[in-house]
C-alpha cells in the first residue's frame, strides 16, 4: 500500500521502474534491512514495518534531497563491504553478521576501499538519525505508521488535545457539573 501511494504521488523523481520515489527496489530492500537492525522489531514493531524506508524515500525527494548522493553511494558501499567480508549482499546476511558490519561502519572500520566517496561512520550516523526521525516523528512524513512508536511510549494516539483527558482524574482541578444524570 505504501508503495502504491508512492507511485501515485506524482513527485516524479522515481528511478526507473521502482515503486519508490528515489530508491531502487534493491536499495529500498537493503535500507529496510539496515533500519530494522537500528530499531528491531520485538514486542513492538520495528523500523521497517513502521515505514522508515518510506519516510527516507519521501524526504529524499523533499527537504533532504541534498542527501541523495550520500544514500546512493552509502547503500552501495554497504553491499560492497558485505561482499568483501562475507561474500554476499547485506540482505542475505544472517543477523549476527549484519550487526557486526553495522558496528564496523559505526566505528569507521568497514573495508576502506568500499567507502571512498562517503565515510562509513558518517553514513551510519545519518542512517541512525533518520531512522529515529522516521520511527518517532509525525506519521504525516511517511513513517511511524499508525503512531506505533508513540503507542510504544504510552503517549495517547491519536493525540488528545488539551488537558481534558487529565481533568477527570486530577484532584487539583475542581469538577463542575454531574457526571451522569
Amino acid at each position, binding site marked *: 500500500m505504501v508503495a502504491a501511494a508512492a507511485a501515485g504521488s506524482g513527485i516524479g523523481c522515481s528511478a526507473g521502474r521502482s515503486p519508490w520515489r528515489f530508491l531502487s527496489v534493491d536499495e529500498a530492500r537493503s535500507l529496510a534491512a539496515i533500519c530494522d537492525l537500528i530499531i528491531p522489531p520485538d514486542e513492538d514493531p520495528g523500523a521497517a514495518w513502521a515505514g522508515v524506508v518510506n519516510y527516507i524515500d519521501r524526504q529524499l525527494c523533499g527537504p533532504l534531497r541534498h542527501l541523495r548522493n550520500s544514500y546512493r553511494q552509502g547503500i552501495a558501499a554497504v553491499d560492497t563491504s558485505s561482499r568483501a567480508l562475507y561474500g554476499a549482499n547485506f540482505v542475505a546476511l544472517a543477523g549476527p553478521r549484519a550487526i557486526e558490519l553495522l558496528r564496523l561502519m559505526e566505528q569507521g572500520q568497514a573495508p576502506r576501499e568500499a567507502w571512498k566517496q562517503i565515510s562509513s561512520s558518517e553514513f551510519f550516523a545519518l542512517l541512525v*538519525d533518520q531512522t529515529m526521525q522516521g520511527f518517532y*516523528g509525525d506519521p504525516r512524513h511517511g513513517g511511524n505508521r499508525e503512531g506505533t512508536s508513540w503507542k510504544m*511510549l504510552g503517549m495517547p494516539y491519536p493525540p488528545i488535545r488539551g488537558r481534558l483527558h487529565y481533568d477527570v482524574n486530577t484532584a487539583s482541578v475542581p469538577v463542575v457539573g454531574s457526571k451522569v444524570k
Partner: protein
Amino acid sequence: MALKHVNAVVVGAGAGGGIVAKELATAGLSVVLVERGKWYTAFDCRKDDLRNQRTPVLGNSFGPDEDRNPRVFVDEQGHEHLMKPSDGGYSNNAACVGGGTASYGAMAWRYMEKDFRMRSTYGTVAGSTLDDWPITYNDLEPYYEKAEWEIGVSGDDANNVFRSPRRRPLPMPPLPGNREYEVLKPAAQRLGLHPFDIPMLRNSVPYNGRAACMRCRWCVGFACEVDAKNGTQNTVIPTALATGNCELRSECIVKEILTDSRGRVKGVAYFDSESRLREQTADLVVVSGSAIESARLLLNSKSRLFPTGLGNRYDWVGRNLQGHAYTGAVGRFDFEVYDDLGPGAGIAICDFNHGNRGLNGEGLTSGGMLANEFIRLPYQFVGWRPPGVPRWGRAHKEFMRQWYRRSIGVMGPVQEMPMFDSRVQVDPKVKDYWGIPVVRLSGHRHPNDQVVGKFLASKAEAWLQEAGAITTWTFSLATGLSGGQHQAGTCRMGDDPKISVVDKYCRVHDVDNLYVIDGSVHVTNGGFNPALTIMAVAYYASDNLAKSRKGTHGAS
C-alpha cells in the same frame, strides 16, 4: 511611485520591534514596520515533531526560507561552512511577525541587579570584554512591569528570594504544577534551595481577550494553537495597527539603511514581497532585526561617510555575540514522571545565578537559573541518551521504553562572558537571493563558561538525586560560538563611543536619528532567557524616543 514619507521605519517585527512600533504609533508617530518573514497565526501550529523551531530536521517552520538565506559559519579550526537556516551553526532565531516570540517557550525573566553590573561585581575577566550596562535594573524596572502586564505573564516568583525588587505582582497566577514539579519542589526545599513558579509569557487564565493554555504537548518551538502564548504578534503589533498610524509590511527584506550627505539616515531600501527594490524614507530608523541580522544591516549600510558600515567607526558592530550555553542533568526515576502536560517547564531556582566559583576555583563568577525542561516529543528524547547506552539496536528501544516516561531534565543557561572575537561580519563573497552580502559568523566561548556549566550541572544533578532519581548524568557544554535563539550583544550599549555602538537610549553614537532596539544592545545576557529583557529595553527606549520627538512630529 514613491512611498509616502513617515516618521519612523522599524526594521524587524520581533520582541523589540513590535513594541517599538506600538509605542511610537500610539504616541502619534507614523510608522512603517518592515518584517522579512510572514505573519503566522494560531492556525499555523502544525504540531509537527520534525519541522518546528526547536527540531528543524525537515526545515524550520517560522522562517527564513531555507534556500534564499544562507550564512557562512567559520568553525574553531577556521574551516568555512555554508549554512541553511535549519543547520545548527546558522544560529537561526526566526523570521516572522512576532520573531522568536511566535514560537518560543515563553519564559519571562527579569534579569537581576547584578546582571547589569557584571564588571563591577566580578572585576575584569581576562580574555573577555565584560562590562557594566550604562543603565541599571532600577532604570528598567517600570518597563519590565509594563511588559509583564501588556504582553501578559503568568507565574509566581514570590518565593524567589534572589529576585530583584518588583513593585507589582505578575498579572496572572501560575499554571498548576505537573508531576515533575511535584517531585522537584519538595526536593529543592529539602536542599535549602528556593524553588518557585517560572514566570511565563503564557496565559494561565483568559487574558487580554485570549484563551488560557490548554496544556498540550506542542509548546516550545510551535505557534500556540489556542493563542495562549503571548508574543508581539498577538499583542502589541495588532495594537499598533489599530491606531491607524502603523503599517506592517511583511515579506520585505531590507537591503540597507540610506544616509544623506550630512551623515543622518533618511530611510531604508528594501525588496518587497515580489523582490522589487523600494525606498521608504523616514525621519528616523529603528533597527530591530535581532543580534545577528541587525549587525548585518548596519555593516551592509556603507557610504562615503560610513565606509565600514553605520555605527562601526570603532569596529564594534557585530562584536560580543552572545547567547546561552545550556547545561544541566537528566535524572531517571523508578516511577513515571511524564504526565503529558505542557508546557512542561514550571519550576526554577535562582540560587546559583551569582557568586559561584570561577576559573581555577579562584574568584567568583555568575551562573544561571535552573529549571525543569520543557515537555519533549519522542524524537527529541532520543537525544537524552545517557553515556554508555548504545544509540541503536535493542538497547536503544529498551532505553526509550524504560525512560521516556521516567526521566526529568533540569537545565539552565550559563551567563556567558562576552568575547570580542565572537562576531558577526558580512561575508566578502557569499550573497543571498536578493544579492545582499550574508552573515559570516566566527568565534568561540570563553573558558569560564565551561567552569560555570560544570558547576551548574552538578547542582542540577544533586537536585535530581534528592528528588529520588536512581541514576543521573550531566550534559557537556558546547565550546564553539554562541548565538542561537538567545542571540545578543552585537551592538553594545555604552557611554563611551569607542567601546560601544549605541548610547544608553539605544541611539547609535554618531548618527542621531538611528536606533538599535533589540537584544543586540545587551552588554551581558544574564543567566536567563532574554525575551522579557528585550521587551523591557524596547519599552524603555521607545519611551525616551517618543518623548524626545514630542512636539516635532505629529501623525501625518
